[in-house]
């Protein structure tokens, strides 16, 4: 394969998203491959990598069926010596948890970096889980950048650490960092690892006899991981003589909000910033020996705070998100903001224009686009639900979750990727008569195939609607792993009876016919699947524009 060497400009600042900073760091670290499933706020990491891979041909990149397959592909790259990055949103790590947890036991060869984007505040997610907990669970290292430049530096370092300690290294990002732009300077690139294809099977076959030895090895490496954390430049401790007895611990982006308010404090506190985990315990002890009380500012779960509070009484009062009366100075949910941190520091709020002057304002929730094919599907579901009042509809994750809102109110649940099918099966198993599952094409391929196998196996009395808009729409119209033409054979190949498997075209004209078809299949005592097809309106517009530009280019070349 012809390879052009990427020569990044290491002299000019570029305005990069935090996600893009991670992507360029992975390129400059010499990755052989990049894998991901799209998920806000992590998507732009892989979008950037795909564009660069196409431009340079220097490494492989592709969207995967889901985060688990992405993680496994990354392990395969490592097994033959190459470096790989796998990117996902926080809940994606739940899907990838099996290979992730076990990867820490294998004898990783090429560095594996797991870039995980948490979404505190739930801008585009169903929960606020904190990926630092996963890193500790797997007994690996976690780096938590506070800004875009650090996202670059830490991702570069994470590859080195992964190879030094033979563990997958987590780079924990948060929404504001992923989707904030700031100037970033790249560093000279490193050459790619040779691909030699000679793994030691004893380090990769996790049979109990090997796994026990490898687990012991991982446990034996823990002091070395802790030692790294204690001495690396990402954790910094500043002790001041005139701190008034106050010590601050910040982690990741928490530092930004602290520094934002620092000029307004009468005395600058002593300050420990944590950017690398496991926790730098000696540094924490040095801070605690120096101050009389602690305030902990961390984005997400109170991970540091819990470790410090423990079960026995702390010798110092600790202020943060948990603890007794007077100690909770920050909310447990939502994001940190300059304002909440300001309050926690005991500063008065900044004066503002009185928001009451705005008067009562209507909310403006996101909604399905004008011309979206899902509107046609939901119009039919609404018609069905009006006629038959006892239809339970298990929904799923994607643009079509917006069918939950008025005027459709078309779904009753939305829990995690693929859950619609399994939950519909459960509802039917329990004896409910009219059960629908609604899922998108990409979510079906991500996590819907295996529960459909369960439903086939039991010929469950349920109807599955696959809303096939031929793209991953919510995250920005990425291509699905299989084209819509291959979706039908996948479904019938699983064993869905062909007479109860329908592929129909979504269109306002066909709404009534479609509603009748759904009604018939809901009445059928057994499993049925209806695929409703029409391209996403946003993707269709984009494709039209691309064709126009292409034609324009061809004309210009003539």
């Amino acid at each position, binding site marked *: 394969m012809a390879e052009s060497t990427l020569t990044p400009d290491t002299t000019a600042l570029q305005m990069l998203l935090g996600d893009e900073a991670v992507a360029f760091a992975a390129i400059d670290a010499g990755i052989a491959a990049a894998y991901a499933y799209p998920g806000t*706020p992590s998507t732009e990491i892989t979008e950037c990598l795909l564009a660069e891979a196409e431009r340079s041909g220097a490494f492989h990149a592709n969207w995967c069926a889901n985060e688990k397959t992405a993680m496994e592909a990354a392990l395969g790259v490592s097994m033959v010596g190459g470096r790989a990055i796998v990117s996902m949103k926080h809940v994606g790590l739940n899907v990838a948890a099996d290979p992730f947890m076990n990867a820490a036991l294998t004898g990783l060869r090429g560095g594996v970096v797991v870039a995980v984007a948490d979404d505190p505040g739930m801008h585009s997610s169903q929960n606020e889980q904190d990926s630092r907990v996963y890193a500790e669970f797997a007994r690996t290292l976690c780096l938590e950048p506070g800004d875009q430049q650090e996202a670059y530096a830490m991702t570069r370092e994470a590859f080195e650490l992964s190879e030094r300690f033979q563990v997958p290294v987590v780079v924990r990002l948060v929404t504001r960092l992923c989707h904030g732009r700031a100037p970033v300077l790249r560093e000279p690139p490193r050459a790619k690892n040779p691909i030699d294809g000679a793994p030691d099977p004893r380090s990769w076959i996790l049979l109990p006899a090997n796994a026990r030895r490898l687990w012991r090895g991982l446990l034996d490496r823990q002091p070395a991981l802790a030692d790294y954390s204690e001495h690396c430049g990402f954790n910094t401790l500043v002790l001041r003589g005139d701190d008034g007895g106050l010590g601050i611990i910040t982690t990741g982006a928490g530092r930004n909000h602290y520094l934002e308010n620092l000029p307004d404090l009468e005395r600058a506190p002593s300050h420990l910033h944590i950017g690398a985990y496991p926790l730098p315990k000696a540094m924490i002890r040095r801070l605690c020996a120096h101050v009389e009380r602690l305030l902990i500012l961390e984005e997400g779960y109170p991970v540091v705070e819990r470790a410090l509070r423990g079960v026995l009484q702390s010798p110092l009062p600790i202020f943060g998100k948990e603890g007794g009366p007077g100690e909770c100075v920050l909310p447990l949910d939502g994001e940190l903001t300059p304002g909440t941190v300001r309050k926690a520091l005991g500063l008065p*709020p900044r004066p503002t224009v009185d928001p009451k*002057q*705005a*008067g009562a304002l209507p909310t403006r929730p996101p909604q399905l686009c004008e011309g979206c094919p899902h509107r046609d599907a939901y119009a039919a579901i609404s018609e069905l639900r009006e006629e038959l009042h006892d239809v339970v509809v298990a929904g799923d994750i994607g643009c079509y979750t*917006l069918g939950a809102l008025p005027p459709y109110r078309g779904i009753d649940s939305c829990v995690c990727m693929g859950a619609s099918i399994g939950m519909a099966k459960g509802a039917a198993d329990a004896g409910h008569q009219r059960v629908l599952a609604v899922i998108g094409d990409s979510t079906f391929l991500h996590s819907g195939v295996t529960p459909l196998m369960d439903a086939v196996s039991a010929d469950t009395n349920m109807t599955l609607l696959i809303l096939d808009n031929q793209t991953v729409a919510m995250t920005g119209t990425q291509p699905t792993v299989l084209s819509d033409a291959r979706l039908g054979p996948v479904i019938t190949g699983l064993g869905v009876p062909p007479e109860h498997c329908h592929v129909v075209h979504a269109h306002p004209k066909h709404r009534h016919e479609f509603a009748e078809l759904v009604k018939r299949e809901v009445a059928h005592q057994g499993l049925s699947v209806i695929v409703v097809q029409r391209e996403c309106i946003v993707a269709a517009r984009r494709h039209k524009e691309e064709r126009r530009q292409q034609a324009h280019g061809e004309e210009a070349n003539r």
Partner: protein
Amino acid sequence: MKTDIVLAGVGGQGVLSMAAIIAAAALREGLQVKQGEVHGMSQRGGAVQAGLRLGDAPIHSDVVPEGGAQLILSLEPVEALRYLAWLAPDGVVMTAAEPFENIPDYPPLEDIHARIRALNGGHLIEAARLAKQAGSPRATNIVMVGAAAPYLPIDAAHLEAEIRERFRSKGADVVEHCLRAFALGREAGACIEA
């Protein structure tokens, strides 16, 4: 020097492009910049907000602090009112006057306009009309960049250079329309200031 701006509008209106043009021009000016964007779910016709922080010293938080913004720059009048808690007491609200009505309970427009006019620094710009006048109805957000220009710590020439650069690939006509939209917006913004 520090200028915090909250940019507001409805998903699809061009809030992010507006932020990107101002951010890039600020870099040309030699300023430090942090730009917060909104991706994902809320882009689908929902309320969208982006933060832009400009300064001559390092900027820390990725988001504009409550009470920190000198300017709310909005492409939609109802959206302009949503973020007053982020506006400094002497801050300015500069918004397109034309509504984007994709919700059933949109309040009477005169009422919304009156609320904006009642603010100390509240200004309505007929951005859609000016964009049309400039030759490109899609350039409403460029009109608003122009309207904001007198309040930005950025030389207008840098903003124009950025607009040229950004739309170059779309052809000379589009560049011309955008520059005219910028100039009309700037005129409208400057009139208010005087």
